[in-house]
């Protein structure tokens, strides 16, 4: 049973989510990777603010095509490794009122504390599913810092429909990544003896 989430996402919606829930995302997302996160923490730009309130940050460096009329299209757009944003993520969530961080691989303690404090969740998309996830992008609403950051790092603002993801860190301190690490470490003991 998939839970539908529509931006702007409310605090009440977030508090209902728990680790392992499958969700479908609808509405606005902002793509940001390493340069974007550094910029949001150091410069706190306002141009991105309206898209992030109650919104979703997506860790993704897409393959993008420009058509003859100058319009942009996502060709492949799966998640990238989230842990690189660990130094920045909690601060970005607090500064901009972000409700969901979407990526792959999960995040660490600082982000977990940030998710609990600001009532937000970490969502995991299927890594490698570039073509399928690009098709859940309905339109590209805007792009910022394209010249300066380049295609994979720019702030792409997109609208998505039925974008699939799994809650792997919830606002109550739960982390599927920690659970699986603990379980697999226990299973590894004695496996080769």
């Amino acid at each position: 049973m998939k839970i539908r989430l529509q931006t702007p996402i409310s605090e009440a919606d977030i508090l209902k989510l728990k680790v392992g829930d499958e969700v479908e995302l609808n509405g606005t997302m902002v793509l940001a990777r390493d340069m974007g996160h550094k910029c949001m923490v150091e410069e706190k730009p306002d141009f991105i603010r309206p898209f992030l309130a109650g919104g979703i940050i997506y860790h993704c460096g897409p393959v993008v095509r420009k058509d003859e009329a100058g319009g942009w299209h996502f060709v492949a757009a799966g998640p990238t490794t989230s842990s690189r944003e660990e130094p920045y993520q909690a601060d970005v969530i607090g500064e901009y009122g972000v409700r969901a961080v979407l990526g792959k691989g999960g995040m660490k303690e600082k982000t977990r504390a940030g998710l609990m404090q600001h009532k937000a969740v970490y969502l995991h998309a299927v890594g490698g599913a570039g073509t399928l996830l690009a098709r859940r992008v309905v339109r590209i609403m805007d792009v910022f810092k394209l010249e300066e950051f380049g295609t994979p790092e720019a702030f792409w603002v997109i609208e998505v429909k039925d974008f699939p993801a799994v809650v792997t860190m919830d606002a109550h301190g739960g982390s599927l990544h920690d659970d699986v690490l603990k379980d697999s470490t226990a299973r590894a003991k004695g496996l080769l003896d």
Partner: protein
Amino acid sequence: MLQDAFLELLRRAACDLPPDVEAALRQAYEREEAGQPAKSVFGTILENVAMAREASTPICQDTGSINFYIDFPVGQREQDYRVAAEAAAAEGTKRTYLRPNAVNPITGKNSGNNVGVNAPFFHFHQWAEPYTRVRVMLKGGGSENVGAQYRLPDTSIGAGRDLNGIKKCILDAVLKAQGFGCSPGAIGVGIGGDRMTSYLLSKEQFFRRLGSVNEDATLARMETELCGKLNELNIGPMGFGGKTTVLGVHIGAQHRHPATFFVAITYMCWAYRRKTMTIRDGEVRYED
């Protein structure tokens, strides 16, 4: 034209998963229970693979580092292949089969066309055959980050200079990788050699098909045993928990210096992209 042949090879590599890999993913899908995130992940992966093939779009937006292994007949020039392959990589980037993935580590500047110093990576080999064989592997960055090299003995994991020690290295690497390399991965292992050649050997294992049997009986037994045991870890697809943690384990061994004993492990994400092209009397053929 040679450049067109390379371009088609890159398109196929980026957009069309080899059948052995797709079959392994389908089996993994069937093993998972309905209603679990693991089942949904494999469902999404299989749907994505079919879509990418149909539309000639990249399976994954990280189209990886490009590795070419080129065997060519006596009397031909490496340079001709290099020029054609680099031009094809640049054209493939323009056509969005490939994402620009060559970044200058000093200036931070992306070359924009996948061509740079040692990018693509070439391994040339002149052979006695009358035809050319080009093998290409697209190696994702996320999975490359979870590779590991061990120097035996390694007391931190209780690994000595023996078969059990080697197995402990492989188990440790897969456990540490969790879902970060886009599991379920294929595991390439290089035993022996030096710092450089152990990694190289581990990566060359990915030119083997999944399910192929190692010619060395000891290594073949080790591959089967490890594949079974690693799947008991329950790390599952994306690290969500599940019955398939690895798609296969491929191991190579080479002689070592008496003083050294390296075990290198390279992790290939589930988007295990490789393709082969042969050129015989001007006729180009593509294989998986």
